[in-house]
Structure formats: structure tokens, C-alpha cells
């Protein structure tokens, strides 16, 4: 079954064609990495899939349902979650409050402004488990702005998973992480159930090749190569535009 189907997608900003006719087919349970030079259009493509930008032309289909014109929150309800290249958290709230907000939104629980956060017992339990999974068990009451950059990235992953999405879009999940933290995140991602489909942008080739079943290479808004690690490493065009001489 195809989890995500992108057909002839275009995104234009003024005279610039950031995405210029991209088609992708990602099978349910697949791990796909999207690589390419800086400015190739990777993040814009992510925005069009997640709904934070609307495509100028083309279609995006999620598990057979056309979501091309759906707003971002409706796509989230259809089981799509994403993380951002640049962290996107509530800096003045605590770690647990950030997780509770994400879990409440995902569970479709309306939060009452006059009720204390602690009274949402089941959400709390789920939040605590997520924090433990993502190495933040000791930090629930720390304000997010006081977390290190790496911890903020880990929290972002925990938030994306709070809603148990069917498809997860990861924008550079290990950027800014030390080797140790990066290895932990890779291990956590590898352990995720194959019921979840993952599309990720990643510049660390050890991570991209380590996690992905297949790799798509984007250059100037177009897919110029697609294949497994061996095919991509052997592709002379990919070496020239992205990897450099090995």
C-alpha cells in the first residue's frame, strides 16, 4: 500500500520554482531519506506535504486520500506529523507542558483553561512515558528555554510521536546533536514500529543511509536520482552535486 503519493508537485514563489515537478511514492512502513544540496527545495517540499505551504500545482495523497488542499491541522488529524529543521517549541512552558499540549491535541482532548494540567491523568502518564523514551525523564518541570539545543531536538521528536502518527516527516532529526545523542536518536528511530512510515531530510550520510530503505535526491526542485545506498553512492551526478569526491 502506498502511504504517501506525490504527483507532479510544483511550488512557485514569485519567479522562483522551488519545487519543480516532484513525484514520490512511499510505501507504508518504508523509511525514505530525501537528500540534496542546500537550497534544493527539500524543506519547501516538506511544507507542501505537511500543509504549512500549499502546492502551486500537483497532488499529495495520504493513504489514498487527496490532501493537496487540506490545511496543516487537518493533515495532522489524518495521521501526519512532522518535526522542524529549526526547533519549534513553547520556550516558556515546561517540558511536560509541551508534551501534554501535543498529546491533548492528538487525543482531541479540549484543554480547559481553568483546569490544572496535572488533572489530565492519562495524558500525564503518556507524557511521562514519551519523556522517558526520549531521554528527558529527569526534565519534566524544566522550562524548555533552559534545555540544551540537543535536548530541545529530542523533545521535538517526542512531541511529533505524541499523536502516534501514521507518517512522520523529519527535517534533519540529528542536526545539532553530538555523536552520542545522534546515535541514541538513530536507535530510537530504528526501533519505531514499521506501522509508521518515515520521510526524512538528513545531511549526515551515516544517519541517512543507516535509517533509510531508499534515498531520493533532490536538486533544483527536481528528483534527479532514487535508489538504495549502493545505487546512490555509485551515482556520478550525486557525487558531483552533493557528496563530493569520496
Amino acid at each position, binding site marked *: 500500500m502506498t502511504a504517501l503519493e506525490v504527483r507532479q508537485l510544483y511550488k512557485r*514563489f514569485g519567479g522562483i520554482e522551488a519545487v519543480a515537478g516532484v513525484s514520490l511514492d512511499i510505501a507504508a512502513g518504508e523509511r525514505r531519506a530525501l*537528500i*540534496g*544540496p*542546500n*537550497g*534544493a*527545495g*527539500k*524543506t*519547501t517540499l516538506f511544507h507542501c506535504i505537511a500543509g504549512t505551504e500549499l502546492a502551486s500545482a500537483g497532488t499529495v495523497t495520504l493513504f489514498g486520500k487527496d490532501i493537496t488542499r487540506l490545511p496543516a491541522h487537518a493533515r495532522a488529524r489524518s495521521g501526519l506529523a512532522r518535526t522542524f*529543521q*529549526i*526547533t519549534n517549541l513553547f520556550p516558556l512552558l515546561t517540558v511536560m507542558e509541551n508534551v501534554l499540549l501535543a498529546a491533548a491535541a492528538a487525543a482531541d482532548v479540549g484543554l480547559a483553561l481553568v483546569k490544572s494540567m496535572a488533572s489530565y491523568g492519562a495524558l500525564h502518564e503518556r507524557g511521562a512515558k514519551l519523556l522517558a523514551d526520549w531521554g528527558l525523564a529527569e526534565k519534566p518541570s524544566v522550562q524548555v528555554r*533552559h*534545555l*540544551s*539545543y*540537543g*535536548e530541545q531536538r529530542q523533545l521535538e521528536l517526542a512531541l511529533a510521536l505524541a499523536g502516534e502518527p501514521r507518517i512522520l516527516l523529519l527535517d*534533519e532529526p540529528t*542536526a*545539532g*546533536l*553530538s*555523536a*552520542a*545523542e*545522534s*546515535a541514541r536518536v538513530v536507535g530510537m528511530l530504528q526501533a519505531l514500529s514499521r506501522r509508521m512510515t518515515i520521510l526524512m531530510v538528513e*545531511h549526515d*550520510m551515516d544517519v541517512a543511509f543507516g535509517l533509510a530503505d531508499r534515498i531520493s535526491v533532490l536538486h533544483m526542485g527536481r528528483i534527479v536520482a532514487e535508489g538504495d545506498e549502493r545505487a546512490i553512492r555509485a551515482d556520478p551526478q550525486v557525487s558531483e*552535486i*552533493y*557528496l*563530493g569526491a569520496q
Partner: protein
Amino acid sequence: MLSVQDVHTYYGDSYVLQGVSLEVKPGEVVAILGRNGVGKTTLVRSIVGLTPPRRGRIAFRDADITRLPAHRIARMGIGLVPQGRRVFRSLTVRENLTVVARGEGPWSLDKVLELFPNLPRRLRSPGGKLSGGEQQMLAGARALVTNPKLLLMDEPSEGLAPLIVRELGNVIDALKSSGTAVLLVEQQLRFALRHADRIYIMSKGRVVHHCSPRELADDAAIRSRYLGV
């Protein structure tokens, strides 16, 4: 060139740097390694005056800069490539570079633009419209056009494609041969090993190890203990 002596820095009650000392000599590339959350960025912020230390002393070319405001420290010749792409989002690429450019020194606008292949064709785009990696390139270019005597780089390779990371390495080598000192906070161990003259490893707010890249490459026990690799 830079001397950091027994520096203690707090965020409110949080005791982050617990007595850090290190030194950077003229024309030297010094890397700081360590896991996330050990205080590397706080050290950079202490040096440039954004989060001054509560105790200890920081000297730059023999002048005490411990309590100077950030803009004065910048004017003395310390450049910063901050972590996380802090460019002026509403200014164009050209404006980002010209507002900070200073005449004296080898790094003219044209020379710097040669180093970052994406920037010349984006000169009229607002900083906020660049891709993440392009913003990182702009942050690097902006630090260079100030013609710093010491350049602090906080994870300059983050978000850059492998080919551009290699070019960034060439920039660091070029800085070094022009006599500029570089203090490099870096997560990519391979990159640090290739370009640094000396390495300090931090853990829990302290410098716990000091060695040459060669020694670190050969010392699996230290790598595993402090870097987890």
C-alpha cells in the same frame, strides 16, 4: 590571543560553567568537543559577552574583556557564527553582509561570496527566505566580512550538505593561513579532527581533557567516555 581563566557562568540558579580554562594562540584552530548540554554554547556566549561569567577572567590580546558589553567585544575583533542560523530575516543577503562589513582585512564582500556558492545568486533575497543551509552559509559569511582576529564558530557545519561542509573546511584552513585564530564548537568529530590543531573536551561544565587531534583519534577510551563514540 584568547585566554579563559577559571570561568564560572550561571543561567539564573543553574550553574553551567564550573571553572573552565583554555587558551587560543594566534593562527590556531582550537576545537571544543563534548555531548549536548555540557556548556559549549554557554562558553561561547561567555566569551562574546552575551552571558558574562559570574567569576573568572577572559582576556583577548591581553585586554580584560570579562565585563565588556557584547558590541565592544565584537569591535575588538571577535567574530561569531552563532548556532541555529541567526541571520537578520528581513534584511537581504547583501544587507546582512554590508551592515557588518569592515574595511580593514583580507575578507572583502566579493572574496567571501566566492566561498559560499549559493549566496551570490541570493543577494537580493531576504535572509528569512533562504533555506536553512543557506542561512547557515550567510551566518558564516557575515562573520567573515567583519574581518575578525578571532572567530568563534558554534556548530558551523550544522545543516550543510557534505559538499559544502568540505568547503567550510577549506574556509577554516584559509582563515588559519591568514593568521586568524578559530575557536570551533563542533559535533562532527571527523571535521574537528581534520581541521583543529588542538582539542578540548568538555563534560558537565568543565574541561575534562585536552589533546591533539592525533591523540584523540588514537584514544578510543576517551572518545567513548566523553563523546559516546
